[in-house]
């Protein structure tokens, strides 16, 4: 397959920064959007905009059908068994907060334990800390190796009768580590613990099959997989979601309301209070279509090639230390330039048209664990090329020159 055909679909990549061709290596923060996603948004507001689920008029019915069609596309994309298991949220953070609240109200008691890891994004730490504070539950943390891999031996030791939930990232946004989630899920289930997978960094790079994984919950964001911002998904097994206490109350999530007794709506609506973000959900569906048209294996092949090329080219520079050397990585390359603060390097790279991210990547605990304050992170999508890596390498040489 021709990568140029992919690149051509992203209008934003045509721009120049300071006369340099734009190299976008900040895909772990958010990926760019193909024309078909942008078109879907425009089309919705041009032709279909109306509120869903409650109108008898034609537009409302069309919008409702389109919205529910998108839900089925998500269901197929992650291989869920029912579209009732797909809850639309604002994003991964919102999905995890929903779960932390609802699970907390339903299942978590004083003294219960929740396991996360040192690798997690703040979004998969803070909601659990808040829950633990509310319920006097205990947060346990799986440590990682110097390479940035989970210590599975320690994980096994953390599991016990009190462990209600294991909340773990599929792919680390700070280091790129792909965690052995299947193994984690199986071990947790043997221990009668539930599992949430934070898939924010996985869905654009790996084929995700929630039935094969057998995870209880899976959270991800549209905007990190070529879709619009403002939409995410919480997948949950139907029998679990049915038991969970609702999160927010309001319209849409109710069957009937009276001051004596309000009856909640059925799944998935029970968890979708208020007018949903219809336009962006439809744009999200277009992003799924984009991925399916190209084939996620093909997209991943381009990324993996760029990731391994970038890793070996950076090693050649000599003054580079790659942070996170897990066997299995996806999409992310974190590194440091000896003697140069990541912020300084990022500032000059930016001037040279290379968009990377610097800092702690919303993952302070792993930075602390590795004894650093932050890294420079290049993160890749299917439209990135080896040629762009070469440009970044030249820019790094230039940066080193400027600071010496």
């Amino acid at each position: 397959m021709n990568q140029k055909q992919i690149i051509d679909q992203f209008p934003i990549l045509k721009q120049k920064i300071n006369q340099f061709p734009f190299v976008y290596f900040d895909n772990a923060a958010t990926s760019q959007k193909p024309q078909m996603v942008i078109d879907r948004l425009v089309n919705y507001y041009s032709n279909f905009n109306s509120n869903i689920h409650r109108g008898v008029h034609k537009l409302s019915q069309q919008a409702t059908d389109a919205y529910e069609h998108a839900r089925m596309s998500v269901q197929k994309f992650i291989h869920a068994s029912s579209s009732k298991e797909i809850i639309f949220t604002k994003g991964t953070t919102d999905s995890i907060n929903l779960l932390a609240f609802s699970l907390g109200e339903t299942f978590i008691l004083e003294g219960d334990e929740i396991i996360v890891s040192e690798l997690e994004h703040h979004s998969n730490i803070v909601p659990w800390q808040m829950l633990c504070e509310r319920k006097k539950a205990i947060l346990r943390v799986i440590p990682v190796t110097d390479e940035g891999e989970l210590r599975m031996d320690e994980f096994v030791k953390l599991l016990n009768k009190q462990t209600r939930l294991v909340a773990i990232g599929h792919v680390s946004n700070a280091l790129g580590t792909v965690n052995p989630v299947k193994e984690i899920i199986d071990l947790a289930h043997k221990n009668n613990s539930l599992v949430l997978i934070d898939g924010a960094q996985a869905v654009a790079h790996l084929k995700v099959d929630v039935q094969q994984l057998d995870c209880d919950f899976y959270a991800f964001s549209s905007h990190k997989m070529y879709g619009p911002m403002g939409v995410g998904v919480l997948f949950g097994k139907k029998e679990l979601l049915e038991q969970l206490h609702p999160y927010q109350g309001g319209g849409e999530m109710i069957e009937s309301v009276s001051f004596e007794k309000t009856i909640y709506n059925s799944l998935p609506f029970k968890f979708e209070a208020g007018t949903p973000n219809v336009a962006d959900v439809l744009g999200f569906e277009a992003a799924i279509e984009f991925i399916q048209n190209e084939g996620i294996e093909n997209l991943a092949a381009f990324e993996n090639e760029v990731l391994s090329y970038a890793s070996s080219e950076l090693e050649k520079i000599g003054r580079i230390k790659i942070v996170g050397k897990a066997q299995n990585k996806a999409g992310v390359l974190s590194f440091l330039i000896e003697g140069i603060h990541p912020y300084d390097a990022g500032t000059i790279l930016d001037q040279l048209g290379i968009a990377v991210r610097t800092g702690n990547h919303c993952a302070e605990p792993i930075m602390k664990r590795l004894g650093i304050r932050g890294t420079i992170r290049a993160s890749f999508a299917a439209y990135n090329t080896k040629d762009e890596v070469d440009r970044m390498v030249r820019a790094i040489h230039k940066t080193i020159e400027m600071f010496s």
Partner: protein
Amino acid sequence: MSIQEKANEIVAEFALFDDWMDKYNYLIELGHSTPIIEEKYRNESYLINGCQSRVWISAEMVDGKMILKADSDAVITKGVVSLLIRVLSNEKPEDILGNELGFLDQIGLQEHLSPTRANGLRAMIQQIKLYAMASEARKK
């Protein structure tokens, strides 16, 4: 030289640069040459929040004037903060409080510093003004 005169001098220096590269090279040079803050100030109490890099600023009153010193673990940041110090150090607190520091816009630092970075710059200015305010309050 007044605060305004020192600021004008910096604006004139920056006007000589043809492109961003010269400008950053100059900031890097400044960052390398700025005297390092004494070790006793490199701690949490002098740390400015809101910057990706760490910045420390200290203030001491000598003969009614405020002597400012600063340091950062990032060179460009140190260059930027050294410009602030050059303009504001060795001035009376009331003069520091009265200056809008418009020169930062004029030398294109705002333009080249994205919001998160600009926030850092803003936080530095705020801290210096806080020092000045505290000193004014003590006077009264």
